[in-house]
């Protein structure tokens, strides 16, 4: 672990998490969640847990994004206020 890289990545992660729950367009929220997962995978590579990072990159940024978009295509895209 290198603390400076760690801090930069983690602050980006926090920003993305806040953005993902604030934005009203659900498709944007899902893409932000995908970016969040990918950054999280980078954090885990940097913390030397390569298997978990591999799984997260495959699942969090790939499969669960595909699931969420597939579900969004059968429901509504915009969140009502």
């Amino acid at each position: 672990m290198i603390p400076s890289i760690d801090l930069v990545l983690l602050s980006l992660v926090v920003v993305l998490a806040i953005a993902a729950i604030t934005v009203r367009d659900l498709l944007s929220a899902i893409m932000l969640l995908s970016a969040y997962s990918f950054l999280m995978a980078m954090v885990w590579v940097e913390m030397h847990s390569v298997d978990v990072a591999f799984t997260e990159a495959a699942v969090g940024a790939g499969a669960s994004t595909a699931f969420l978009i597939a579900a969004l295509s059968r429901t509504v895209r915009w969140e009502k206020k």
Partner: protein
Amino acid sequence: MLEWLIEEIFAKYNYWISITIMLIGFYAMIAKSNLIKKLIGLSIFQTAIFLFFISLADIGPIPRGTAPIVSEAMIHKGYVYVNPLPHVLILTAIVVSVATLAVALALVIRMYEEYGTIEEEEIIEKERELGV
């Protein structure tokens, strides 16, 4: 004061960030009315727990940690393996998290077909109209 701040607060910064992300996800799960937003919050919450466990396993800059794959060369250079047990636990947890997400999305789609909306309040109103 500064020493205390560095030793007690800054040395555990990963845990504070993990708690922050966890609370962001938890807030989304409680306060957001959209069901897919709630599921996004659930994903963020789970990832925060994973971050906590992986941080617990990590070994910092001194001594230098390395990935838990046996290699004599790394050890002779003075590296130390990080703790592989939390990685195993979190692998299982990621699998369970994607299964949870899939079942929850299937339920959301069924609710949309039934009620025509995925906002929680409208679903409650419609249930009230139906007299459930």
